[in-house]
């Protein structure tokens, strides 16, 4: 159990092993580890970014939906209002038309009444004249008493 030249041999072996590890083993393995670490970190970051973007898009979609709803509500309100107006307008128009028709009918009625009265007056006067003529044909001169007869027929109307 003595220290001897084996020590030197072992030291040389050891030095070679360490040199080899340092030169050819450690760097590539370590580099691949670092690269993988970086790739995983990048992947995670990308995933996070995707998530954020999705949330943003969702928010935007909600906003758009809300706006669309508001707009459609506005349109419906407007349409309702317009419909009410149209109904009112048509009501007015109908009323006016009715009144106009009424007035026209009244006028016609008046006119016809006037006509009838006129005709009646003429008939009565002619009838009365005729009757008077019949009764008074002997003594009353038609030409003389025309005026009186007219007055009478007027009183009838």
């Amino acid at each position, binding site marked *: 159990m003595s*220290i001897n030249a084996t020590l030197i041999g*072992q030291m040389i072996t050891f030095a070679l092993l*360490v040199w080899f*590890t340092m030169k050819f*083993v450690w760097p590539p393995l370590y580099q*691949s580890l670092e690269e993988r670490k970086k790739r995983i970190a990048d992947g995670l970051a990308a995933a996070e970014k995707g998530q954020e973007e999705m949330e943003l898009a969702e928010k935007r979609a909600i906003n758009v939906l809300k706006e669309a709803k508001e707009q459609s509500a506005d349109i419906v309100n407007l349409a309702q209002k317009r419909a009410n107006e149209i109904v009112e307008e048509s009501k007015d128009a109908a009323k006016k038309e009715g009144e106009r028709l009424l007035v026209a009918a009244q006028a016609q009625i008046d006119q016809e009444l006037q006509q009838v009265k006129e005709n009646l007056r003429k008939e009565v006067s002619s009838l009365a004249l005729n009757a008077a003529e019949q009764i008074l044909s002997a003594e009353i001169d038609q030409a003389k008493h025309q005026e009186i007869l007219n007055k009478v027929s007027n009183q009838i109307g």
Partner: protein
Amino acid sequence: MATEAHAAEGATGYIVHHLTPLSVGEGFWTLHLDTLFFSAVLGGLFIWFFKMAAEKATSDVPGLVQNFAEMMIEFVDSQVKDSFHGKSELIAPLALTIFCWVFLFNFMDLFPVDLLPMIGSMMGIEYLRVVPSTDLNATFAMSISVFFLIIFYSIKVKGPWGFAKELMFQPFGPWLLPFNLLLKLVEELAKPISLALRLFGNLYAGELIFILIALLPWAIQPVLSFPWAIFHILIITLQAFIFMVLTIVYLSMAHEDH
């Protein structure tokens, strides 16, 4: 050490046989061939596996090999980042190498104690000690290399004068300079020694207990060696982890200016 007496029967002979390395050479220039061989093979295994993972490394979905390699890399990297705040190209790969290599050393302990030596003896190899971390040379080789790195980084970061100042004037100020120097030297020297001896001691003791269990009657052996092996799974991982963490801590201390 390697004499014919060890071939004799008896518990002592068995134990000594198991703890004798396969060596060539004399005196300081002795080489423990088994330690050198197994540590090189295990180092090769480590390099082969991680090189395979590194070549196929992609940032796409990783395969099984890459997954495991990345798990190790992340584990070591988090340990390094916990205690070392500077920037260094060396420390993390060094820590990875230490952890895996020491773990593989220690893992050899889980092979049945007689298996590999028996195969060795069939091939005409008389002695075979399969766990490199039961050889002080293997543990000291790492801890002394770490020690050199500590010195190197201390000088590199603080400058020669800064490092010398730290050795001389801390912790008690310039008036107790010799005392400071002594304290600091002991502190610095204790680092590699404790690193190496901790690992060696744990694994040597663990191996010894396996050997002792192997001496018991065969019916009792599984009852003891099974729990000990399970416990040892914890030990070998823990020792590898401790060696790695302490290396990181020592090197980060070398980087810090007090």
